[in-house]
């Protein structure tokens, strides 16, 4: 009996202290509440999970041939989620809150379409588009870093402002591009598009490999370099880092720039990934940047976690149209994602539980004496 009790206790301790386990629990809770909501409004939750299942493994058509198009679309959708997730994760590790992924994404997309339309087409044009988009995103993020480090401007407010400056700036610039109407520009040259791979019926393209490369790069910089050590030290305790000779101002600016670069890449990947044939004149935000916040939080700001969480969000995005066909409002996926973020915010309550347990433990030890 006592043993059983102890085992249960150690499970609770393990659960509270494991970021991975609480992340899984948070996602589970999000889905649970979503399922209950669907059932409450009189729809069949089974259809919701069927749609999610199909976007994970594909579906057999009526001739019995397995169709992997859905899987390809899922993976394609997950590319921007993972990249904007890396944006948020990178900043978080340096103790910053970059909710400007949306603006950096818009800048990347805008630069990619400017390059595609204004530079004379040549084979490999897409490389130039991606590189300049990355630089654009880095500059847009770096501005915030400099403002934060030099002028103590809150990066939360600054990024919110820059998100909208980017959106309307993008409109101003894109409306001047060749063939611009109220919602699109002229068709992009074929050399600008990312080539498809593995599942040619879907939009899965080589940027998936680039995205995996970005995850590896993130892991390498953060965990294996002196620069990353400085970043993490700045994130853990700014003052201690400064006292040990780490250039905090430089680190914050550089970290925001690298962070923004990931989202800039995401913008270019979405534009050139095959879902669009011409440049875009954005009427509203695509929300990839905000979803990236959720992705990074679910993934605990690690490279692998962000990758897995990004795939999960890709699955949800792909399942939207399937759900709508099965009479489940597709917005349930937004609700699930929103709930996941809310539960992650509530996760900090576990700290209180931890403190309480520590107190109980100490009390018991004192009483035992």
């Amino acid at each position, binding site marked *: 009996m006592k043993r059983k009790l102890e085992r249960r206790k150690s499970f609770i301790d393990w659960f509270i202290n494991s970021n991975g386990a609480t992340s899984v629990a948070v996602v589970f809770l999000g889905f649970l509440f979503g399922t209950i*909501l669907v059932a409450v*409004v009189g729809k069949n939750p089974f259809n919701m999970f069927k749609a999610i299942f199909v976007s994970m493994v594909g579906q057999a058509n009526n001739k019995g041939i397995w169709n992997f198009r859905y899987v390809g679309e899922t993976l394609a959708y997950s590319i921007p989620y993972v990249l904007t997730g890396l944006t948020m994760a990178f900043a978080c590790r340096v103790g910053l*809150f970059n*909710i400007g992924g949306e603006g950096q994404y818009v800048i990347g997309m805008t630069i990619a379409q400017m390059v595609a339309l204004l530079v004379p087409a040549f084979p490999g044009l897409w490389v130039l588009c991606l590189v300049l988009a990355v630089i654009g995103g880095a500059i847009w993020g770096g501005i915030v870093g400099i*403002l934060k480090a030099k*002028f*103590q*401007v*809150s990066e*939360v*407010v*600054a990024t*919110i*402002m*820059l*998100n*909208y*400056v980017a959106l*309307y*700036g993008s*409109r*101003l610039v894109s*409306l001047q591009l060749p063939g611009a109407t109220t919602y699109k520009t002229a068709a992009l040259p074929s050399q600008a598009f990312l080539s498809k791979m593995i599942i040619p019926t879907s939009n899965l393209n080589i940027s998936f490999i680039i995205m995996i490369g970005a995850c590896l790069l993130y892991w390498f910089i953060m965990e294996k370099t002196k620069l990353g050590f400085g970043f993490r030290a700045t994130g853990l305790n700014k003052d201690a880092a400064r006292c040990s000779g780490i250039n905090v101002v430089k680190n914050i600016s550089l970290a925001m720039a690298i962070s923004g670069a990931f989202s800039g890449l995401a913008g270019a990947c979405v534009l050139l990934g095959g879902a669009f044939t011409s440049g875009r004149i954005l*009427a*509203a935000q695509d*929300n990839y940047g*905000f*979803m990236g*916040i*959720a992705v990074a*939080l679910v993934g605990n700001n690690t490279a692998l976690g962000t990758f897995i969480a990004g795939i999960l969000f890709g699955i949800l995005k792909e399942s939207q149209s399937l759900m709508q066909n099965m009479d489940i*409002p597709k*917005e*349930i*996926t*937004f*609700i*699930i*994602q*929103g*709930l*996941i*973020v*809310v*539960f*992650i*915010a*509530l*996760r*900090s*309550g576990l*700290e*209180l539980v931890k403190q309480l347990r520590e107190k109980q433990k100490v009390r018991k030890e004192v009483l035992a004496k």
Partner: protein
Amino acid sequence: MNMIISSIPTILMIVAPILITAIGGMICERSGVVNIALEGLMGIGACAAASTHYLMEAAGCGRYSIAVALLVGMLVSGLFSLIHAVASINFNADQTISGTGINLLADGVTIFASQILFHADRTKEFKVGMVVDKLGLYPTAYIALVVVLVAWYVLYKTPFGLHLRACGEHPAAAESVGINVRRIRYIGVGVSGILSGLAGGCIVLTQTIQYTSNTINGRGFIAIAAVAFGRWTPLGVTGAAFLFGAAQAFSVIATNFPALKVIPAEWFNMLPYAITLIALIVFSGKDYAPQASGKPYSGGAS
């Protein structure tokens, strides 16, 4: 000159909801909680108000439906703001994360509700929204005026207002003189939720005929900008809301002015955000923001 006067009602129509939301956000921050969920809360209020108004109009009781719709909007978005309150006050959550969560949740909940109620990704169009008075003004202008005056009076002329400001500056000191910090912060967050819902209802009942996912379109974030640019005081926030609201209005009515026609509307849209950013840089180093705003307070023990 005539044209400027004739565009005042339009400007006030656009300023009013931004001002109402910004005052709510200001009260919330003065109590020590940062609320970046204003955008989402406005959406929830707008959706609830639009649905209520349509359903009551269809049921034939249109006479009181505007007032009831606004009240429902305030109630629903007030309830949603409690999520933020519980997370940031009881659970010491990161307030930016829980605010972001509510913003994402609002995108889903509002359209989900429309899908269930109206089988479309928007609410059904109502026939008559708010009507203008003899001066050509919508009632929202007066509502905003009342909100500002009451907020100023309560914040600076009542003991409660003093307590609320103390909680935002130094919660430990406030608690040491017997102020219930958690209760005050709950009220701060709740007020910002209720006012955001009111503003959402005002937008939907004056500027459009239904709720869509584009109805709010960044106005909640403009309100956040107005709070920072107005340096967390009622007068400053009012001035900022007027400036930003006028910029928004000009993007709509610039076509009436030959001199302004040549400027693309996007410049006016961008203005509030750019001005706020520049102001934050210029005023940097001087602390106008409430000292404890955004920091969880875990009670006297620490």
